[in-house]
């Protein structure tokens, strides 16, 4: 059996385990990032993590743990910037992210040795060592404990931060925890898909899932399933077709997204007629059922005609 042969190879076993772990963890934290419209947070922290890799290499310690430390510090800095500087915040973030990327590539180059910058930028899942795997697995368990265990509080904070604060939740600590968890996820994904593409595994499965879901919990579950599916099939594809694993995983995830949005479009078209009939009966009711972010339906402007019309009969 073919699968028997690839599962029998030690390096493939490690690759599958690493893929499974990041396929679960990245969409779990990514759901919250998408919910609060910070989809590119992971990308920025990936840049910052590269400096940690460089530090780990140049000090002859672990690149993974170096990345964890620097990415966590970067995440805390991002949270501070987000909280304090409202107007110039995005410029400060750009400094942080590109400084991290430049610092990383500088340090990795200075460290000499045989370290390959590309393997951190784009991942090198097939060269994952046992030590790497343990570190990745331990970090991913931490990510899952936070994202699943605190999901009610994290949902509340991401849905409406102001409300969560008045409700008495420790919003600052939860924000910091979320930023740190994102940073940890970035380092978990670094070996598998690389720092440049780890954000894709946080965002694309969520985007694909929400084409078909109505609830937050379902979106998170479906995103994790899509993440695992894309990660495992990407690794398999890379073994047989000799493609780069990171790129294979991300492209498969994007393929799932495209299929999901086409499927959702067809579903919507089917439901569209009955929804339009319902909207006609109820003045001021929902507008286009296709708007996923509520922008169209929350606009008060389409409503005055309906209200005026209903005030006429008296």
């Amino acid at each position, binding site marked *: 059996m073919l699968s028997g042969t690839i599962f029998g190879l030690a390096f493939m076993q490690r690759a599958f385990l690493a893929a499974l772990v990041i396929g679960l963890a990245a969409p779990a934290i990514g*759901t919250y990032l*998408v*919910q*609060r*419209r910070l*989809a590119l947070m992971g990308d920025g922290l990936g840049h910052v993590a590269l400096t940690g890799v460089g530090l780990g290499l140049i000090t002859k310690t672990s690149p993974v743990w170096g990345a964890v430390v620097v990415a966590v510090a970067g995440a805390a800095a991002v949270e501070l910037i987000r909280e304090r500087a409202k107007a110039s915040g995005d410029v400060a973030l750009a400094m942080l992210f590109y400084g991290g990327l430049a610092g990383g590539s500088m340090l990795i180059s200075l460290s000499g040795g045989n370290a390959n910058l590309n393997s951190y930028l784009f991942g090198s899942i097939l060269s994952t060592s046992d030590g790497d795997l343990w570190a990745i697995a331990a970090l991913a368990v931490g990510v899952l404990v936070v994202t699943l*265990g*605190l999901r*009610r*509080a994290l*949902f*509340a904070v*991401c*849905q*409406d931060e*102001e*409300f*969560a*604060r*008045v*409700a*008495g*939740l*420790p919003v600052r600590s939860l924000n910091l925890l979320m930023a740190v968890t994102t940073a940890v996820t970035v380092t978990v994904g670094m070996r598998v898909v690389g720092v440049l593409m780890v954000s894709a595994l946080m965002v694309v499965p*969520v985007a694909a899932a*929400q084409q078909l*879901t*109505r*609830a*937050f*919990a379902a*979106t998170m579950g479906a995103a994790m399933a899509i993440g695992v599916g894309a990660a495992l099939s990407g690794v398999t594809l890379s073994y047989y077709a000799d493609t780069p694993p990171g790129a294979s995983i991300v492209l498969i995830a994007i393929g799932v997204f495209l299929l999901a949005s086409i499927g959702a479009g067809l579903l919507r078209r089917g439901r569209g007629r009955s929804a339009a009939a319902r909207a006609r009966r*109820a*003045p*001021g*009711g*929902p*507008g286009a*059922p296709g*708007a*996923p*972010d*509520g*922008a169209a*339906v*929350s*606009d*008060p*402007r389409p*409503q*005055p005609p*309906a*209200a*005026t019309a*209903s*005030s006429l009969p*008296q």
Partner: protein
Amino acid sequence: MARGASDITAPAVAVHEVTVTLGGRPILHGVDTTVGRGETVALLGANGSGKSTLVKTIVGLYPVESGRIELFGTPLPSFRAWQRVGYVPQRTTAAAGVPATVGEVVSSGLLTPRGWAVRRGRSDRGAVREALATVGMLDRIGDPVAALSGGQQQRVLIARALARRPDLLIMDEPMAGVDLVSQQAFADALAGLAEHGTTILLVLHELGPLAKLIDRTVVLRAGTVLYDGTPVEHGEEDPAHGHERPGHDHVHPHDTPSEAPGTPECPPGPTPVETLKAATTQATTWKESPAC
């Protein structure tokens, strides 16, 4: 005057000489007002008068520069009983970047300072259903919030605040962009809450269909209290009006024929929301401006 003010010593909200400065700009200058237990108080004022700032300061979102705010007799910095406070922030939508059902959003209102990490139990689900029933949205519990109209989303946000069964309900412009059906459902829900003794403080552009429920209005202008007393519709334009009729419940006597047609488009203010409201609030609310 106010029904709940006498029976319990500490008012639900007490604001003493409060000054608030945001981004170097003074917004509130020595605001003084109270909301007694069980009272329903409307906070009125033009755009930029500071009414939203006052409400956000009361719930601790903005820092108090000088002065003092007390909730249920406890000074704000040391107030911890946030489970007693239900807050409805000013929002145009209840939706975020990921779909969420009405039930999920309302459930988040159950989280309290001590109970934010615990699991959801049977009584919690009951509280969510009860809150949704109060605003007439129980049948939509499984629907995604993004599929609802603006007014329905606003009702979901109110249900979220009600799920914790608050003693004090604070709402920032809950009627903004609310359609006709939702306005009535909202007024009914509020009447029921007030009847059960909930203290209500709400920011409004005008009293509109809520006029009957309001015990007292506080009108702000340029960060100071312009009027505090019996409900008036247009406190800024004619603040003395309410004072001259102290025994009057509210300015919209029921003898005005509520069926009077032809006056739905009186422009009370410049905001787009008000044109919507003008069309939906019955003619009773336009007693003072019959000419337009």
